[in-house]
């Protein structure tokens, strides 16, 4: 069973952290990713550039509209993702709670990925 961990963070809060703290979190982050690679849970993952670099497409008034910015104006922005293979939700949650950005204001959304061969 695959789960997507969507890592969200308030970018202004993140930018307001000191350099030393940001470096520390990123170092822990490397450790976290190496950990899930080693344990065999890791399938894919990546860190996203700032939400200010986002471009959103959507249908509006009968045509495709391209706009600057993320799809939703929220305080927290998607900052990265991990795709992991787990036995069940509890295992996915146990991994998600180790993500180091949680202690600096981050939030992690855990979503099961539908198996296209299932049912």
């Amino acid at each position, binding site marked *: 069973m695959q789960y997507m961990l969507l890592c969200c963070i308030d970018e202004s809060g993140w930018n307001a952290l000191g350099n030393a703290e940001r470096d520390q979190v990123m170092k822990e982050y490397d450790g976290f990713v190496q950990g899930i690679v080693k344990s065999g849970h890791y399938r894919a993952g990546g860190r996203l550039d700032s939400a200010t670099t986002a471009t959103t497409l959507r249908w509006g008034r009968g045509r495709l509209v391209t706009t600057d910015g993320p799809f939703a104006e929220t305080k927290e922005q998607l900052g990265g993702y991990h795709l992991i293979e787990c036995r*069940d*939700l*509890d295992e996915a949650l*146990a991994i998600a709670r180790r993500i180091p950005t949680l202690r600096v204001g981050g939030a992690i959304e855990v979503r099961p990925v539908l198996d296209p061969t299932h049912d």
Partner: protein
Amino acid sequence: MNLEELHRREYGRILATLIRVVRDIGDAEDALQEAFAAAMVQWPKEGLPRNPVAWLITAARNKAIDQLRRRTLAEEKKKEIAELAAQEVDAPVPLDSLRLIFTCCHPSLAREAQVALTLRTVCGLTTEEIARAFLVPPATLAQRIVRAKAKIKGAHIPYEVPEDEALAERLAAVLTVVYLVFNEGYTASFGSDLVRKELCSEAIRLARMLCELLPAERECKGLLALMLLHDARRETRTDAHGEVVTLEDQDRSRWDRGKIDEGAALAERALRGGPPGEYSVQAAIAALHATAAKAADTDWRQIAELYAVLAGIYPSPVVELNRAVAVAMAHGCERGLALLERLELPGYYLLPAARADLLRRLGRNAEAADAYRAALALVGNDAERRFLSRRLAEVSARVH
């Protein structure tokens, strides 16, 4: 034993084991429903089976497996079903009930869904019964349960008792749900008395099960004790006209001695062997109230100390409010009033009501009247409103 009684007593236990076997809550529910329907037809004709529970569980399991076979075409799935069919089950396994309640109270489900699902599956209440108890339309309640089951299935919420490191946190969620069910039955100002009593007894039944299956978890005992001690006083909290009777004025001879003795003994055991949890401390406080022969004998000093312990575990202005009242009763109303002055609980009628009561006891009637008016402006429950109005009239009559 008739079928209805069997349903009440065994439904949740049988269902819990079936879910483990067929690995799906909905399939297990459907199969068990069919098994009960078959029993209703067959038993009167063929006589009661020697082991009715084994009959039901076997019938339900066979129905579930038939249903799965009919639905499944994929070869690889068929092997899985054969594995299921090979499992021997003819009795509910207690651990399965624990698995079920932990699944129903999984933190990834919303609280109201946890409550509804627990009552529906573990307790076997019908959707209509639960909807009535919580004053929501049956369709809303049904949808809540359907969504929760879909999430359990879709997100693969495991059917397991959490491992040691997660147990404390997960058990806290389970106990919260159980206490919520109890409080809904105990304090709700709506709904028939019968429905409310049913919720209280279901909550007590759940807590008994938790105590049995998790004997090392002292908070289970604490919660069971707390609920028994409250429930023992249920009949005396209102008079024949439905008016509120304060703890001080309740007829103690009508309290349920059996529940008090059991609750007090459990509370004592819950407190022993390490730092106590919040339910255990609350149970100890309830036990001190319940075991005082008359109101004047209440050990307020110890109650005040226990509230201080509780505030240490669970800091909250509501706990501080209760502590202030206990301090007032133990050490004088002025000291209690001084503690109340420091509290801020906007919109909470019990704060001005507590102030009013202490001022009334001190004979400061004009101030008491003001405080009763402030409480009346915030109170929601009709019986409480009438009680506060009576007190307001009493103190107003003494103001000159």
